[in-house]
Protein backbone atom coordinates (compact mmCIF):
# COMPACT_ATOMS: atom_id res chain seq x y z
CA UNK A 1 0.00 0.00 0.00
CA UNK A 2 1.32 3.43 -0.94
CA UNK A 3 2.14 5.83 1.88
CA UNK A 4 -0.27 8.72 2.10
CA UNK A 5 1.13 12.25 2.27
CA UNK A 6 0.90 14.08 5.59
CA UNK A 7 -2.19 16.23 5.31
CA UNK A 8 -1.88 17.91 8.68
CA UNK A 9 1.03 18.04 11.07
CA UNK A 10 0.55 19.70 14.43
CA UNK A 11 3.80 20.43 16.20
CA UNK A 12 3.95 21.48 19.85
CA UNK A 13 0.86 23.69 19.94
CA UNK A 14 0.36 25.40 23.28
CA UNK A 15 -2.29 27.84 24.40
CA UNK A 16 -3.75 28.97 27.71
CA UNK A 17 -7.07 30.79 28.02
CA UNK A 18 -7.10 34.10 29.85
CA UNK A 19 -9.58 34.19 32.69
CA UNK A 20 -10.93 37.39 34.11
CA UNK A 21 -9.60 37.91 37.66
CA UNK A 22 -10.64 41.41 38.68
CA UNK A 23 -9.26 42.95 41.83
CA UNK A 24 -9.62 46.35 43.47
CA UNK A 25 -6.19 47.31 42.16
CA UNK A 26 -6.85 46.15 38.61
CA UNK A 27 -10.45 45.49 37.56
CA UNK A 28 -9.27 44.23 34.16
CA UNK A 29 -6.73 41.75 35.49
CA UNK A 30 -6.64 38.29 33.97
CA UNK A 31 -4.89 35.11 34.85
CA UNK A 32 -3.99 31.98 32.94
CA UNK A 33 -6.67 29.34 32.77
CA UNK A 34 -7.08 25.97 31.12
CA UNK A 35 -5.62 25.25 27.72
CA UNK A 36 -3.46 22.84 25.80
CA UNK A 37 0.23 22.17 26.08
CA UNK A 38 2.69 20.89 23.50
CA UNK A 39 0.10 19.12 21.39
CA UNK A 40 1.73 17.25 18.53
CA UNK A 41 0.31 14.73 16.09
CA UNK A 42 0.17 14.11 12.37
CA UNK A 43 -2.65 13.01 10.13
CA UNK A 44 -2.19 11.61 6.62
CA UNK A 45 -4.27 13.09 3.81
CA UNK A 46 -7.63 11.44 3.41
CA UNK A 47 -7.78 10.17 7.01
CA UNK A 48 -10.66 10.54 9.37
CA UNK A 49 -9.40 11.24 12.86
CA UNK A 50 -11.39 11.19 16.06
CA UNK A 51 -10.42 13.79 18.63
CA UNK A 52 -11.54 12.34 21.94
CA UNK A 53 -11.15 13.29 25.54
CA UNK A 54 -13.17 14.11 28.63
CA UNK A 55 -14.93 17.46 29.05
CA UNK A 56 -12.41 20.25 29.39
CA UNK A 57 -9.60 18.23 27.84
CA UNK A 58 -8.90 20.94 25.25
CA UNK A 59 -10.54 19.51 22.14
CA UNK A 60 -12.42 22.65 21.14
CA UNK A 61 -9.44 24.84 22.00
CA UNK A 62 -7.29 22.72 19.69
CA UNK A 63 -9.86 23.02 16.89
CA UNK A 64 -9.98 26.79 17.44
CA UNK A 65 -6.20 26.98 17.08
CA UNK A 66 -6.26 24.86 13.93
CA UNK A 67 -9.03 26.92 12.39
CA UNK A 68 -7.32 30.23 13.13
CA UNK A 69 -9.76 31.49 15.74
CA UNK A 70 -7.03 31.78 18.34
CA UNK A 71 -3.31 32.43 18.25
CA UNK A 72 -1.12 29.73 19.79
CA UNK A 73 1.51 30.73 22.31
CA UNK A 74 3.93 28.35 20.63
CA UNK A 75 4.04 25.57 18.09
CA UNK A 76 3.11 25.34 14.44
CA UNK A 77 0.72 23.69 12.03
CA UNK A 78 1.77 22.26 8.66
CA UNK A 79 -0.92 21.95 6.02
CA UNK A 80 -0.07 19.83 3.01
CA UNK A 81 3.63 20.40 3.61
CA UNK A 82 3.48 24.15 4.29
CA UNK A 83 4.16 25.29 7.83
CA UNK A 84 2.20 28.04 9.55
CA UNK A 85 3.00 29.55 12.94
CA UNK A 86 -0.32 31.31 13.36
CA UNK A 87 -3.39 30.33 11.39
CA UNK A 88 -5.24 33.37 12.73
CA UNK A 89 -3.10 35.91 10.94
CA UNK A 90 -2.79 33.81 7.77
CA UNK A 91 -6.06 33.93 5.78
CA UNK A 92 -4.42 32.08 2.89
CA UNK A 93 -3.67 29.16 5.22
CA UNK A 94 -7.34 29.01 6.18
CA UNK A 95 -8.22 28.59 2.50
CA UNK A 96 -7.66 24.89 2.94
CA UNK A 97 -9.61 24.58 6.17
CA UNK A 98 -13.30 24.16 6.78
CA UNK A 99 -14.48 24.53 10.36
CA UNK A 100 -17.81 23.55 11.82
CA UNK A 101 -18.14 24.85 15.41
CA UNK A 102 -20.24 23.15 18.03
CA UNK A 103 -23.87 24.20 18.45
CA UNK A 104 -24.20 27.23 16.21
CA UNK A 105 -27.60 28.79 16.96
CA UNK A 106 -28.54 30.16 13.55
CA UNK A 107 -31.26 32.72 14.16
CA UNK A 108 -33.02 35.67 12.60
CA UNK A 109 -34.93 36.35 9.44
CA UNK A 110 -32.14 35.26 7.15
CA UNK A 111 -32.36 31.99 5.22
CA UNK A 112 -29.88 29.18 4.50
CA UNK A 113 -29.55 30.52 0.94
CA UNK A 114 -28.64 33.98 2.23
CA UNK A 115 -26.22 32.58 4.80
CA UNK A 116 -24.38 30.60 2.15
CA UNK A 117 -24.44 33.55 -0.23
CA UNK A 118 -22.63 35.62 2.40
CA UNK A 119 -20.11 32.82 3.03
CA UNK A 120 -19.55 32.42 -0.68
CA UNK A 121 -18.75 36.14 -0.95
CA UNK A 122 -16.18 35.70 1.81
CA UNK A 123 -14.61 32.67 0.15
CA UNK A 124 -15.21 33.85 -3.42
CA UNK A 125 -16.59 30.44 -4.38
CA UNK A 126 -19.84 29.01 -5.67
CA UNK A 127 -22.23 27.59 -3.08
CA UNK A 128 -25.14 26.54 -5.29
CA UNK A 129 -24.85 22.77 -4.72
CA UNK A 130 -24.08 22.76 -1.02
CA UNK A 131 -27.64 22.91 0.33
CA UNK A 132 -28.50 19.90 -1.77
CA UNK A 133 -25.41 18.10 -0.51
CA UNK A 134 -26.38 18.54 3.15
CA UNK A 135 -30.05 17.85 2.50
CA UNK A 136 -31.32 21.36 3.09
CA UNK A 137 -32.54 22.16 -0.40
CA UNK A 138 -36.20 22.00 0.62
CA UNK A 139 -35.52 24.47 3.45
CA UNK A 140 -33.34 26.81 1.39
CA UNK A 141 -35.66 29.79 1.78
CA UNK A 142 -37.00 29.03 5.25
CA UNK A 143 -36.10 31.61 7.88
CA UNK A 144 -33.36 30.50 10.27
CA UNK A 145 -35.72 30.81 13.24
CA UNK A 146 -37.86 28.05 11.76
CA UNK A 147 -35.02 25.55 11.31
CA UNK A 148 -34.75 22.63 13.69
CA UNK A 149 -31.53 21.91 15.61
CA UNK A 150 -30.56 19.23 13.10
CA UNK A 151 -31.18 21.53 10.16
CA UNK A 152 -29.05 24.22 11.77
CA UNK A 153 -26.33 21.63 12.20
CA UNK A 154 -26.56 20.82 8.50
CA UNK A 155 -26.25 24.50 7.66
CA UNK A 156 -23.08 24.74 9.76
CA UNK A 157 -21.76 21.72 7.91
CA UNK A 158 -22.54 23.36 4.57
CA UNK A 159 -20.54 26.41 5.67
CA UNK A 160 -17.61 24.17 6.60
CA UNK A 161 -17.73 22.41 3.24
CA UNK A 162 -17.67 25.65 1.28
CA UNK A 163 -14.68 25.91 -1.04
CA UNK A 164 -13.84 22.19 -0.84
CA UNK A 165 -11.31 22.45 1.99
CA UNK A 166 -8.52 19.89 2.23
CA UNK A 167 -8.82 19.76 6.01
CA UNK A 168 -12.23 19.60 7.65
CA UNK A 169 -12.52 20.32 11.38
CA UNK A 170 -15.84 19.24 12.87
CA UNK A 171 -16.78 19.95 16.47
CA UNK A 172 -19.59 17.65 17.62
CA UNK A 173 -21.06 17.22 14.12
CA UNK A 174 -23.52 14.47 15.12
CA UNK A 175 -25.28 16.47 17.81
CA UNK A 176 -28.90 17.13 16.92
CA UNK A 177 -28.90 14.94 13.84
CA UNK A 178 -31.47 12.16 13.55
CA UNK A 179 -30.10 8.61 13.08
CA UNK A 180 -30.69 8.67 9.32
CA UNK A 181 -28.91 12.00 8.99
CA UNK A 182 -26.07 10.67 11.16
CA UNK A 183 -25.59 7.74 8.79
CA UNK A 184 -25.79 10.08 5.80
CA UNK A 185 -23.19 12.36 7.38
CA UNK A 186 -20.91 9.41 8.03
CA UNK A 187 -21.28 8.37 4.39
CA UNK A 188 -20.60 11.91 3.17
CA UNK A 189 -17.48 12.16 5.32
CA UNK A 190 -16.20 8.82 4.03
CA UNK A 191 -16.66 10.04 0.47
CA UNK A 192 -14.80 13.24 1.24
CA UNK A 193 -11.98 11.27 2.85
CA UNK A 194 -11.80 9.02 -0.20
CA UNK A 195 -11.29 12.15 -2.27
CA UNK A 196 -8.35 13.12 -0.07
CA UNK A 197 -9.95 15.42 2.50
CA UNK A 198 -8.40 15.12 5.94
CA UNK A 199 -11.15 15.14 8.54
CA UNK A 200 -10.80 15.75 12.27
CA UNK A 201 -13.92 15.11 14.32
CA UNK A 202 -14.35 15.98 17.95
CA UNK A 203 -17.33 14.18 19.36
CA UNK A 204 -18.74 12.72 22.51
CA UNK A 205 -20.93 10.35 20.54
CA UNK A 206 -18.28 7.65 20.59
CA UNK A 207 -20.36 4.96 18.89
CA UNK A 208 -20.95 7.16 15.85
CA UNK A 209 -17.33 8.21 15.91
CA UNK A 210 -16.03 4.67 16.17
CA UNK A 211 -17.95 3.64 13.08
CA UNK A 212 -16.20 6.35 11.14
CA UNK A 213 -12.66 7.02 12.29
CA UNK A 214 -9.55 5.07 11.51
CA UNK A 215 -7.30 7.05 13.81
CA UNK A 216 -7.76 8.73 17.16
CA UNK A 217 -6.03 11.50 19.07
CA UNK A 218 -6.71 11.22 22.78
CA UNK A 219 -6.55 14.48 24.68
CA UNK A 220 -6.47 14.71 28.44
CA UNK A 221 -5.62 17.71 30.60
CA UNK A 222 -4.64 19.65 27.50
CA UNK A 223 -2.14 17.11 26.28
CA UNK A 224 -2.09 14.28 23.78
CA UNK A 225 -2.05 11.07 25.77
CA UNK A 226 -1.96 8.75 22.82
CA UNK A 227 -2.59 8.92 19.09
CA UNK A 228 -2.55 6.66 16.09
CA UNK A 229 -4.65 4.04 14.37
CA UNK A 230 -7.37 2.53 16.50
CA UNK A 231 -5.73 -0.92 16.50
CA UNK A 232 -2.34 0.39 17.48
CA UNK A 233 -3.89 2.54 20.21
CA UNK A 234 -5.67 -0.53 21.61
CA UNK A 235 -2.37 -2.37 21.45
CA UNK A 236 -0.45 0.41 23.18
CA UNK A 237 -3.04 0.52 25.94
CA UNK A 238 -3.07 -3.25 26.31
CA UNK A 239 -6.67 -3.41 25.21
CA UNK A 240 -5.96 -5.96 22.47
CA UNK A 241 -5.18 -8.72 24.97
CA UNK A 242 -8.72 -9.68 25.72
CA UNK A 243 -10.43 -12.74 24.35
CA UNK A 244 -14.14 -13.41 24.35
CA UNK A 245 -15.02 -17.10 24.72
CA UNK A 246 -18.54 -18.47 24.76
CA UNK A 247 -19.87 -21.99 25.23
CA UNK A 248 -23.05 -23.74 26.39
CA UNK A 249 -22.11 -26.82 28.39
CA UNK A 250 -20.91 -26.98 32.01
CA UNK A 251 -18.73 -24.62 33.98
CA UNK A 252 -15.44 -23.93 32.17
CA UNK A 253 -14.13 -21.47 34.73
CA UNK A 254 -11.22 -23.61 35.92
CA UNK A 255 -9.99 -24.42 32.44
CA UNK A 256 -10.27 -20.82 31.37
CA UNK A 257 -8.38 -19.62 34.46
CA UNK A 258 -5.44 -21.87 33.58
CA UNK A 259 -5.01 -20.01 30.27
CA UNK A 260 -5.45 -16.41 31.33
CA UNK A 261 -6.90 -14.00 33.85
CA UNK A 262 -10.70 -14.06 33.87
CA UNK A 263 -11.95 -10.47 33.66
CA UNK A 264 -15.60 -11.39 33.40
CA UNK A 265 -17.51 -14.69 33.67
CA UNK A 266 -21.21 -15.38 33.30
CA UNK A 267 -22.90 -18.72 33.86
CA UNK A 268 -23.98 -20.32 30.76
CA UNK A 269 -21.12 -19.49 29.82
CA UNK A 270 -19.44 -16.36 28.56
CA UNK A 271 -15.99 -15.25 29.61
CA UNK A 272 -13.56 -12.44 28.90
CA UNK A 273 -9.94 -13.58 29.32
CA UNK A 274 -6.82 -11.48 29.58
CA UNK A 275 -3.21 -12.44 28.85
CA UNK A 276 -0.31 -10.09 29.43
CA UNK A 277 1.47 -11.37 26.30
CA UNK A 278 -1.68 -11.25 24.15
CA UNK A 279 -3.50 -14.03 22.36
CA UNK A 280 -1.40 -15.63 19.65
CA UNK A 281 -2.87 -18.18 17.26
CA UNK A 282 -1.10 -20.93 19.21
CA UNK A 283 -2.42 -19.86 22.59
CA UNK A 284 -5.95 -19.69 21.19
CA UNK A 285 -5.56 -23.20 19.70
CA UNK A 286 -4.33 -24.55 23.03
CA UNK A 287 -7.31 -23.01 24.83
CA UNK A 288 -9.86 -24.36 22.36
CA UNK A 289 -8.27 -27.82 22.37
CA UNK A 290 -8.32 -28.06 26.15
CA UNK A 291 -11.90 -26.78 26.36
CA UNK A 292 -13.01 -29.41 23.82
CA UNK A 293 -11.05 -32.17 25.58
CA UNK A 294 -12.59 -31.29 28.94
CA UNK A 295 -16.10 -31.29 27.47
CA UNK A 296 -16.71 -27.54 27.24
CA UNK A 297 -16.60 -26.95 23.48
CA UNK A 298 -16.78 -23.20 22.77
CA UNK A 299 -18.94 -21.97 19.91
CA UNK A 300 -17.38 -18.53 19.81
CA UNK A 301 -13.79 -17.43 20.31
CA UNK A 302 -12.78 -13.93 19.24
CA UNK A 303 -10.64 -11.00 20.25
CA UNK A 304 -12.69 -8.50 22.21
CA UNK A 305 -12.14 -5.03 20.82
CA UNK A 306 -12.23 -2.22 23.30
CA UNK A 307 -14.55 0.56 22.22
CA UNK A 308 -13.66 4.24 22.33
CA UNK A 309 -15.20 4.71 25.76
CA UNK A 310 -12.94 1.99 27.15
CA UNK A 311 -9.94 3.39 25.32
CA UNK A 312 -10.69 6.82 26.77
CA UNK A 313 -11.13 5.37 30.21
CA UNK A 314 -7.93 3.35 29.99
CA UNK A 315 -5.90 6.20 28.56
CA UNK A 316 -7.00 8.73 31.15
CA UNK A 317 -6.57 6.27 33.97
CA UNK A 318 -10.20 6.48 35.08
CA UNK A 319 -11.17 3.45 37.10
CA UNK A 320 -14.75 3.59 35.94
CA UNK A 321 -16.84 5.57 33.54
CA UNK A 322 -18.73 8.25 35.48
CA UNK A 323 -20.02 11.80 35.31
CA UNK A 324 -17.31 13.06 37.63
CA UNK A 325 -15.02 15.72 36.28
CA UNK A 326 -11.50 15.45 37.53
CA UNK A 327 -10.39 18.87 38.80
CA UNK A 328 -7.09 18.35 37.12
CA UNK A 329 -8.78 17.85 33.76
CA UNK A 330 -9.34 21.58 33.50
CA UNK A 331 -5.70 22.61 33.37
CA UNK A 332 -2.77 21.24 31.40
CA UNK A 333 -0.58 18.70 33.11
CA UNK A 334 2.35 20.95 32.41
CA UNK A 335 0.93 23.90 34.35
CA UNK A 336 3.69 23.68 36.88
CA UNK A 337 6.10 24.65 34.13
CA UNK A 338 4.23 27.87 33.46
CA UNK A 339 4.42 30.78 35.83
CA UNK A 340 0.95 31.63 37.09
CA UNK A 341 0.11 35.33 37.00
Amino acid sequence: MAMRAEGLVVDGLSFRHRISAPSLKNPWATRQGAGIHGVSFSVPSGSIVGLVGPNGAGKTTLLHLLSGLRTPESGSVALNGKEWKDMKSSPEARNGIGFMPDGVRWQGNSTPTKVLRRMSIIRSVDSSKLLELVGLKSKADETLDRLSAGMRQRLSLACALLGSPTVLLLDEPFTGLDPVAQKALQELLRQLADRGTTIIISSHLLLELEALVERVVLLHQGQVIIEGKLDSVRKKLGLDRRLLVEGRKGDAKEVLASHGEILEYHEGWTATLYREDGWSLQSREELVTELCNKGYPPYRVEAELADLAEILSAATGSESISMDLADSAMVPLARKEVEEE
Partner: protein
Amino acid sequence: MNLRRILSLAKDEVEQRALSLRMLIMAPLLTLFILGACWGISDPDASLPSSISADTPFEVLFVASLFILLSATLGVVLFGFDGISRSRMSGNLAIELAQPIARRELAWSMLLGTWAVVAIPTLLLSIAGIILIRIQMGEWASFADISLFLFSTAMLLFWYAVIQMYASSLAKDMGSSIALGVAAWLLFTMVWLLVTVLVASILGVESSNTTDPLYETFSAKVDLFSPNGVYHLLLETRLAEDLSRPISPLLVVLATALWTLLPLVAYLKRFEKLQP
Protein backbone atom coordinates in the same frame (compact mmCIF):
# COMPACT_ATOMS: atom_id res chain seq x y z
CA MET B 1 -7.46 44.50 1.54
CA ASN B 2 -10.03 43.40 -1.00
CA LEU B 3 -12.26 46.49 -1.27
CA ARG B 4 -14.69 44.79 -3.61
CA ARG B 5 -15.28 41.97 -1.13
CA ILE B 6 -15.70 44.43 1.74
CA LEU B 7 -18.33 46.37 -0.19
CA SER B 8 -20.12 43.16 -1.28
CA LEU B 9 -20.31 41.98 2.33
CA ALA B 10 -21.48 45.40 3.52
CA LYS B 11 -24.13 45.40 0.79
CA ASP B 12 -25.22 41.96 1.89
CA GLU B 13 -25.61 43.22 5.48
CA VAL B 14 -27.66 46.19 4.31
CA GLU B 15 -29.91 43.94 2.20
CA GLN B 16 -30.48 41.56 5.08
CA ARG B 17 -31.41 44.38 7.45
CA ALA B 18 -33.33 46.60 5.04
CA LEU B 19 -36.58 44.72 5.61
CA SER B 20 -35.99 43.74 9.21
CA LEU B 21 -38.33 44.57 12.08
CA ARG B 22 -35.82 47.13 13.31
CA MET B 23 -36.04 48.97 10.01
CA LEU B 24 -39.83 48.90 10.25
CA ILE B 25 -39.47 50.70 13.58
CA MET B 26 -36.75 53.08 12.42
CA ALA B 27 -38.09 54.11 9.00
CA PRO B 28 -41.24 55.92 10.23
CA LEU B 29 -39.26 57.55 13.05
CA LEU B 30 -36.60 58.85 10.69
CA THR B 31 -39.24 60.01 8.20
CA LEU B 32 -41.25 61.85 10.83
CA PHE B 33 -38.24 63.41 12.52
CA ILE B 34 -36.28 64.52 9.44
CA LEU B 35 -39.05 65.45 7.02
CA GLY B 36 -41.25 66.79 9.81
CA ALA B 37 -38.44 68.99 11.12
CA CYS B 38 -37.48 70.34 7.70
CA TRP B 39 -41.11 71.03 6.79
CA GLY B 40 -42.12 72.46 10.15
CA ILE B 41 -39.11 74.66 10.85
CA SER B 42 -39.09 76.11 7.35
CA ASP B 43 -42.80 76.96 7.56
CA PRO B 44 -43.00 80.79 7.51
CA ASP B 45 -45.90 80.63 9.96
CA ALA B 46 -44.06 78.43 12.44
CA SER B 47 -43.32 80.13 15.75
CA LEU B 48 -39.94 79.00 17.05
CA PRO B 49 -38.47 79.97 20.42
CA SER B 50 -36.88 83.38 20.14
CA SER B 51 -33.37 82.05 20.71
CA ILE B 52 -33.63 79.84 17.60
CA SER B 53 -33.01 81.51 14.28
CA ALA B 54 -34.17 79.76 11.10
CA ASP B 55 -34.25 82.50 8.51
CA THR B 56 -32.20 80.83 5.79
CA PRO B 57 -32.39 77.28 4.33
CA PHE B 58 -29.13 76.32 6.01
CA GLU B 59 -30.27 77.65 9.37
CA VAL B 60 -33.35 75.44 9.01
CA LEU B 61 -31.07 72.50 8.24
CA PHE B 62 -28.97 73.36 11.28
CA VAL B 63 -32.02 73.30 13.56
CA ALA B 64 -33.29 70.12 11.85
CA SER B 65 -29.93 68.51 12.64
CA LEU B 66 -31.09 68.31 16.28
CA PHE B 67 -33.77 65.87 15.16
CA ILE B 68 -31.21 63.87 13.21
CA LEU B 69 -29.11 63.71 16.35
CA LEU B 70 -32.01 62.19 18.20
CA SER B 71 -33.40 59.81 15.59
CA ALA B 72 -30.61 58.70 13.26
CA THR B 73 -28.08 58.10 16.02
CA LEU B 74 -30.72 56.05 17.82
CA GLY B 75 -31.04 54.10 14.58
CA VAL B 76 -27.33 53.31 14.62
CA VAL B 77 -27.70 52.12 18.21
CA LEU B 78 -30.66 49.96 17.21
CA PHE B 79 -28.75 48.31 14.38
CA GLY B 80 -25.31 48.29 15.92
CA PHE B 81 -25.71 47.41 19.60
CA ASP B 82 -25.57 43.69 18.79
CA GLY B 83 -23.69 44.02 15.50
CA ILE B 84 -20.97 41.73 16.80
CA SER B 85 -22.28 40.35 20.07
CA ARG B 86 -25.29 38.64 18.51
CA SER B 87 -23.31 36.60 16.00
CA ARG B 88 -20.68 35.99 18.65
CA MET B 89 -23.23 34.54 21.05
CA SER B 90 -24.94 32.44 18.40
CA GLY B 91 -21.67 31.03 17.11
CA ASN B 92 -21.94 32.47 13.58
CA LEU B 93 -18.96 34.70 14.24
CA ALA B 94 -16.72 31.67 14.77
CA ILE B 95 -17.69 30.40 11.32
CA GLU B 96 -16.97 33.76 9.71
CA LEU B 97 -13.69 34.29 11.53
CA ALA B 98 -12.50 30.85 10.46
CA GLN B 99 -13.01 31.72 6.80
CA PRO B 100 -10.01 32.73 4.66
CA ILE B 101 -10.58 36.45 5.02
CA ALA B 102 -8.45 38.96 6.90
CA ARG B 103 -10.16 40.05 10.10
CA ARG B 104 -9.65 43.65 9.08
CA GLU B 105 -11.78 43.09 5.98
CA LEU B 106 -14.52 41.45 8.00
CA ALA B 107 -14.41 44.27 10.56
CA TRP B 108 -14.72 46.90 7.84
CA SER B 109 -17.59 45.11 6.15
CA MET B 110 -19.56 44.82 9.40
CA LEU B 111 -18.90 48.46 10.23
CA LEU B 112 -19.85 49.75 6.78
CA GLY B 113 -22.96 47.54 6.77
CA THR B 114 -24.13 48.95 10.10
CA TRP B 115 -23.34 52.49 9.01
CA ALA B 116 -24.94 52.22 5.59
CA VAL B 117 -28.18 50.68 6.79
CA VAL B 118 -28.93 53.92 8.70
CA ALA B 119 -26.92 56.39 6.64
CA ILE B 120 -28.63 55.59 3.34
CA PRO B 121 -32.21 56.33 4.51
CA THR B 122 -31.03 59.27 6.64
CA LEU B 123 -29.19 60.91 3.74
CA LEU B 124 -32.05 60.23 1.32
CA LEU B 125 -34.53 61.73 3.77
CA SER B 126 -32.20 64.68 4.30
CA ILE B 127 -32.17 65.34 0.57
CA ALA B 128 -35.96 65.09 0.57
CA GLY B 129 -35.96 67.52 3.52
CA ILE B 130 -33.82 69.98 1.54
CA ILE B 131 -36.41 69.83 -1.24
CA LEU B 132 -39.17 70.49 1.30
CA ILE B 133 -37.28 73.53 2.59
CA ARG B 134 -37.00 74.79 -0.99
CA ILE B 135 -40.76 74.38 -1.38
CA GLN B 136 -41.48 76.20 1.87
CA MET B 137 -38.92 79.00 1.61
CA GLY B 138 -38.67 79.37 -2.14
CA GLU B 139 -34.87 79.15 -2.15
CA TRP B 140 -32.25 76.43 -2.12
CA ALA B 141 -29.51 76.05 0.40
CA SER B 142 -26.17 76.60 -1.31
CA PHE B 143 -24.30 73.63 -2.75
CA ALA B 144 -21.55 74.07 -0.14
CA ASP B 145 -24.14 74.14 2.66
CA ILE B 146 -25.86 70.99 1.39
CA SER B 147 -22.54 69.18 0.90
CA LEU B 148 -21.35 70.07 4.39
CA PHE B 149 -24.68 69.05 5.90
CA LEU B 150 -24.73 65.66 4.18
CA PHE B 151 -21.03 65.05 4.85
CA SER B 152 -21.34 65.95 8.54
CA THR B 153 -24.43 63.76 8.94
CA ALA B 154 -22.66 60.84 7.25
CA MET B 155 -19.65 61.33 9.51
CA LEU B 156 -21.79 61.56 12.65
CA LEU B 157 -23.43 58.25 11.81
CA PHE B 158 -20.04 56.72 11.06
CA TRP B 159 -18.68 57.76 14.47
CA TYR B 160 -21.73 56.28 16.16
CA ALA B 161 -21.42 53.11 14.10
CA VAL B 162 -17.79 52.69 15.18
CA ILE B 163 -18.65 53.34 18.84
CA GLN B 164 -21.54 50.89 18.71
CA MET B 165 -19.51 48.17 17.01
CA TYR B 166 -16.70 48.60 19.51
CA ALA B 167 -19.16 48.44 22.41
CA SER B 168 -20.78 45.39 20.83
CA SER B 169 -17.43 43.66 20.57
CA LEU B 170 -16.97 44.11 24.34
CA ALA B 171 -20.38 42.67 25.24
CA LYS B 172 -20.62 38.98 25.98
CA ASP B 173 -24.36 38.78 26.55
CA MET B 174 -27.41 40.55 25.21
CA GLY B 175 -27.95 42.52 28.44
CA SER B 176 -24.52 44.12 28.47
CA SER B 177 -24.79 44.59 24.73
CA ILE B 178 -27.92 46.72 25.13
CA ALA B 179 -26.53 48.51 28.18
CA LEU B 180 -23.30 49.51 26.43
CA GLY B 181 -25.09 50.60 23.27
CA VAL B 182 -27.71 52.71 25.00
CA ALA B 183 -25.23 54.13 27.51
CA ALA B 184 -22.99 55.46 24.74
CA TRP B 185 -26.01 57.06 23.02
CA LEU B 186 -27.37 58.54 26.24
CA LEU B 187 -24.00 59.98 27.22
CA PHE B 188 -23.54 62.01 24.06
CA THR B 189 -27.17 62.77 23.29
CA MET B 190 -28.79 63.40 26.66
CA VAL B 191 -26.17 63.75 29.34
CA TRP B 192 -23.50 65.76 27.53
CA LEU B 193 -24.97 69.14 28.54
CA LEU B 194 -24.81 68.02 32.14
CA VAL B 195 -21.20 66.93 31.65
CA THR B 196 -20.38 70.33 30.13
CA VAL B 197 -22.01 72.24 32.99
CA LEU B 198 -20.34 70.01 35.55
CA VAL B 199 -16.88 70.47 34.06
CA ALA B 200 -17.51 74.21 33.75
CA SER B 201 -18.45 74.42 37.44
CA ILE B 202 -15.36 72.47 38.45
CA LEU B 203 -13.14 74.74 36.36
CA GLY B 204 -14.89 77.88 37.65
CA VAL B 205 -16.56 78.87 34.38
CA GLU B 206 -19.90 80.60 34.95
CA SER B 207 -22.53 78.21 33.60
CA SER B 208 -25.81 79.72 34.75
CA ASN B 209 -26.04 81.86 31.61
CA THR B 210 -25.54 79.69 28.54
CA THR B 211 -25.40 82.74 26.23
CA ASP B 212 -22.37 84.13 28.08
CA PRO B 213 -19.52 84.30 25.47
CA LEU B 214 -17.09 82.76 27.95
CA TYR B 215 -19.39 79.79 28.53
CA GLU B 216 -20.05 79.50 24.77
CA THR B 217 -16.32 79.26 24.08
CA PHE B 218 -15.96 76.74 26.87
CA SER B 219 -18.89 74.61 25.73
CA ALA B 220 -17.56 74.62 22.16
CA LYS B 221 -14.25 73.27 23.44
CA VAL B 222 -15.95 70.60 25.54
CA ASP B 223 -18.07 69.68 22.52
CA LEU B 224 -14.90 68.69 20.69
CA PHE B 225 -14.93 65.60 22.91
CA SER B 226 -18.41 64.55 21.82
CA PRO B 227 -19.42 63.30 18.35
CA ASN B 228 -22.66 65.28 18.59
CA GLY B 229 -20.68 68.37 19.55
CA VAL B 230 -18.26 68.01 16.66
CA TYR B 231 -21.23 67.47 14.31
CA HIS B 232 -22.75 70.76 15.40
CA LEU B 233 -19.44 72.57 15.35
CA LEU B 234 -18.92 71.37 11.78
CA LEU B 235 -22.31 72.76 10.79
CA GLU B 236 -21.67 75.98 12.70
CA THR B 237 -18.72 76.73 10.42
CA ARG B 238 -21.32 77.65 7.74
CA LEU B 239 -23.50 79.73 10.06
CA ALA B 240 -23.28 83.49 10.44
CA GLU B 241 -20.77 84.61 13.05
CA ASP B 242 -23.40 85.75 15.54
CA LEU B 243 -25.05 82.33 15.42
CA SER B 244 -21.93 80.17 15.75
CA ARG B 245 -19.73 79.64 18.77
CA PRO B 246 -16.26 81.15 18.81
CA ILE B 247 -13.85 78.30 18.08
CA SER B 248 -11.09 77.85 15.53
CA PRO B 249 -12.25 75.86 12.47
CA LEU B 250 -8.88 74.13 12.56
CA LEU B 251 -9.76 72.62 15.93
CA VAL B 252 -13.06 71.42 14.50
CA VAL B 253 -11.32 69.80 11.53
CA LEU B 254 -8.78 68.22 13.87
CA ALA B 255 -11.57 66.88 16.10
CA THR B 256 -13.32 65.48 13.03
CA ALA B 257 -10.18 63.67 11.97
CA LEU B 258 -9.53 62.34 15.49
CA TRP B 259 -13.13 61.22 16.00
CA THR B 260 -12.86 59.36 12.71
CA LEU B 261 -9.47 57.79 13.27
CA LEU B 262 -9.11 56.99 16.96
CA PRO B 263 -12.30 54.96 17.52
CA LEU B 264 -11.76 53.28 14.15
CA VAL B 265 -8.23 52.18 15.03
CA ALA B 266 -9.44 50.99 18.44
CA TYR B 267 -12.27 49.03 16.82
CA LEU B 268 -10.03 47.41 14.21
CA LYS B 269 -7.48 46.45 16.86
CA ARG B 270 -10.23 45.07 19.07
CA PHE B 271 -11.60 43.02 16.18
CA GLU B 272 -8.15 41.56 15.50
CA LYS B 273 -8.09 40.23 19.06
CA LEU B 274 -11.72 39.18 19.13
CA GLN B 275 -12.30 35.69 20.53
CA PRO B 276 -15.30 33.69 19.31
